[in-house]
């Protein structure tokens, strides 16, 4: 059994706090030999914003030819999607929002064209993880990011109840998360727990 994990490092800053959190999760997942991991750094992935042209409502695909082309298939093939993003100005950063908005293709497939996004037998066997970091120490700093993440997962057939969140505030400068008392352990626990849950579901 191969468990496919597709991870997005959404930050424009490579190897910063949100990507470090992601790497901890992925490293713990990778301890399992059945897990195959692909990590994509959005800052290098050439994913443009959605044009809002609604052509996908008729064509069942996006008219834009950019880095998103290969990602649409990968999003469907993966058993687990991990999205990591920093909070900028109280929301997810623009690069990550571009990826989320480009999932409009799946929304059109599901609600306009009434076609399946994943085969019936894979429903309920896909898990999502949202990782975020924020410089602000406010507890509510992640609130506005979550609805867009839920929307993204919903259209790619990851149920609301199947999304796990690990959000760490009060980490601003690069590397600040290394000094966080629990982030690393929490990330590793989440990574291992997610793989264990996926194995259970895929075996069922």
């Amino acid at each position, binding site marked *: 059994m191969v468990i496919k994990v597709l991870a997005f490092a959404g930050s424009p800053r490579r190897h910063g706090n949100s990507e470090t959190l992601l790497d901890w999760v992925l490293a713990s997942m990778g301890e399992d030999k059945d897990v195959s991991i692909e990590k994509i750094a959005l800052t290098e992935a050439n994913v443009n*914003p959605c044009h*809002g042209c609604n052509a996908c409502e008729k064509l069942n695909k996006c008219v834009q030819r950019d880095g998103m082309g290969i990602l649409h298939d990968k999003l469907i093939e993966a058993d687990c999607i991990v999205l990591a993003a920093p909070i900028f*100005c109280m929301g997810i950063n623009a690069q990550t929002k571009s990826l989320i908005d480009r999932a*409009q293709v799946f929304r059109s497939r599901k609600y306009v064209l009434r076609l399946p996004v994943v085969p019936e037998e894979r429903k309920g066997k896909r898990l999502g993880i949202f990782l975020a970091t924020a410089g602000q120490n406010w507890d509510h700093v992640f609130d506005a990011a979550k*609805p*867009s993440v*839920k929307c993204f997962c919903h259209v790619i057939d990851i149920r609301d109840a199947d999304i796990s969140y690990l959000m760490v505030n009060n980490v601003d400068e690069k590397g600040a998360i290394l000094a966080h008392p629990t982030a690393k352990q929490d990330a590793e626990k989440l990574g291992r727990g997610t793989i264990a849950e996926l194995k259970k579901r895929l075996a069922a």
Partner: protein
Amino acid sequence: MVIKVLGISGSPHRHGNTETLLDSFFDGAREAGADVEKIVLKDLEYVPCKGCNVCHKTGECIVRDDVIPLIDKILAADCLAVTSPIYSMGITAELKGLIDRAQYLWARKFILKTLYFSNDHIKRHKGLFISTAGLSWDNVFDAAFPAITAFFNGTGFEYYDNIIANNMDAFGGVKKHPTALKEAFEKGKTVVEVLEKMNTLA
């Protein structure tokens, strides 16, 4: 003094529901005697914030593109209408791209302490958020507000009002909405009148 109204169109889609609402807001503002100007983000050349934090030291953005003159224009306006349709429960990536780039103003305010907006300045600079959403949910705009609040705070505008209309998919567009265009017109007229009155009292 003529009130300057700047409208930022954050939709990738020209002349759609959100921009139509902005146009109606402009009509009201013009009737009250304002100068209006529209900036269409999709026609500008700019990149999202790189998160490099150089502005935390210098107060300047190292990326020299269309955002820099746009921020200058924003700072010179009396009334700012920031507009975006709701995509995936949030504002568009184009508008978020602009908002994130204003990080250098945040740095000037809170790190370098070289930028300060007095309460009087903020009162005289009114910001409005104009948005439409296809979904009918009442909470469909909620996740957009915090970033808009952050942007108005950074640029010295009072977050004065919203002009928002949901359920566009069911209405078949903003032109078929019973009240939205009229509300936008009235709010455009009123905000300019309020600003004019403040100027005459000063």
